[in-house]
């Protein structure tokens, strides 16, 4: 008996829909506060810096640096087994926010904190695209 191997997919909701819609079109957007001007991520209902609710999804450059990483050798579920070893990364964007991602386009052994990265887009299904990062 074989189990269906399902990769965990992001399920966009009211708070995150614009992020995933933009990613599917190959853009990165982040919430930016219309009162204090700062970007933040992951999305909060209120600005984490000034508590304003006047937040607007705003395009970001997609450029940043590798803030930290780990090379995953043991898959969390069978869905990832074919991909090990792979790099789970935290990326710091030029605009300030950090986010988790995968590092692609180079061998795991080449990952180095501080390396310049740019966003790339990995299509997972007809409706979902995952932002990933590769060396600039």
């Amino acid at each position, binding site marked *: 008996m074989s189990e269906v191997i399902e990769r965990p997919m992001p399920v966009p909701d009211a708070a995150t829909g614009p992020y995933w819609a933009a990613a599917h079109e190959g853009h990165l957007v982040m919430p930016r506060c219309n009162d204090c001007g700062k970007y933040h991520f992951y999305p909060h209902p209120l600005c984490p810096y000034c508590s304003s609710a006047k937040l607007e999804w705003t395009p970001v450059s997609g450029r940043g640096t590798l803030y930290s990483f780990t090379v995953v050798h043991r898959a969390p579920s069978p869905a990832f087994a074919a991909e090990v070893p792979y790099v789970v990364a935290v990326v710091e964007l030029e605009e300030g926010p950090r*986010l988790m991602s995968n590092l692609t386009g180079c061998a795991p052994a080449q990952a180095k904190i501080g390396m310049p990265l740019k966003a790339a887009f990995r299509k997972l299904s007809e409706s979902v695209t995952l932002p990933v990062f590769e060396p600039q």
Partner: protein
Amino acid sequence: MSKTNAAIVGIGESKVGSVPDRSALQLQADAAQAALADAGLKMSDIDGLLTTPVRVEHWNMPCGVVAHHLGVRAKFLSTVDLAGASGCGMIHQAAMAIASGQCSTVLCVAGQNLLSHGSRAKAVKSMAEGGSAHPQFEVPYGPLVPSLYALVAQRHMHEYGTTPEQLAEVAVTIRRHASLNPNAHKRELITVDDVLKSRMITSPLHIFDCAIVSDGAAAVIVTSAERARDLKQKPVHLLGQGYGLRHSHIGDTELTTTGAVDSGRDAFRTAGLTPADVDVAQIYDCFTITVIVELEDLGFCKKGEGGHFVENGRIGLGGELPITTHGGLLSGGHPGLGGGFFHVVEAVRQVRGEAGARQVKDAEVALVHGNGGVISIHCTLLLGV
């Protein structure tokens, strides 16, 4: 003396390790009965109950399920969910309930058959998708729970030069402590070399850098200092406490400084003590890196010096600051949210002078630290006789 004026008067543990013949409620009942016997109390003396959620069963109101099945007639009950900090949180919340006059004697109990209820693979998958990682912005990238801590370790190594050998030293020391605890899950001694040669799970963390998975439960009985005077055991007082939170998910934070800065500062302030007053520290040890970061954030050493601090026997028995003397989550036992509760039980044993082969000489003040999420939510207690 703490404003809550509460005292711990009973402690108990179920059998810990692989206990396939006991359900979550049976394990909790074993721990509760052991704590009652330790305190010289009966279940009918208990009028408050605190517990945590479990992962192995779906209880729609854990405190109600546990109170009913243990036969507690509760005037106050609540489910505490501070993830891994729940053990410390329950003690303070029991103290507040007693101070308010709502009840007089609270049974705090937590634990489950996390190892035996299903396969290890199932446990790993359910933990990876179980909320520590953000369901939309982290889980799709394939991190294990250990990966979330590996990100902390890698950044700490980058910023401060912390080494894999220093991480391994934490695992080796805590295993040595577990070897002196007859109820610990893993008791065979290991070396730094064993850790470094163990399977790499998610760099730089090897399997021996990670908490184990166990069955087990622990229980603690809290009452007022006045009532404690008439009971069997030397009362152990809650001297101070603090909470801290600086993020909910690890991907959007600074990684190497945590809310333990805030929980530790408040615990020392409320107790009127400093880190130098602590004789033994039950530090939460879900991963080796957790210990290093917490020692720094709690003020036992400067930021960045944690790797150096754990060397040369400083955190072992006989050292300057013996930590996690029962074997912790790395070796003693880790049944989920109840895991951090064993740290409380051990702190009580130490300040009572009842820790046997692993007794810290003249231990009067014990710190207990719990951390939940991914070094997200923190609770620090100071306990003393």
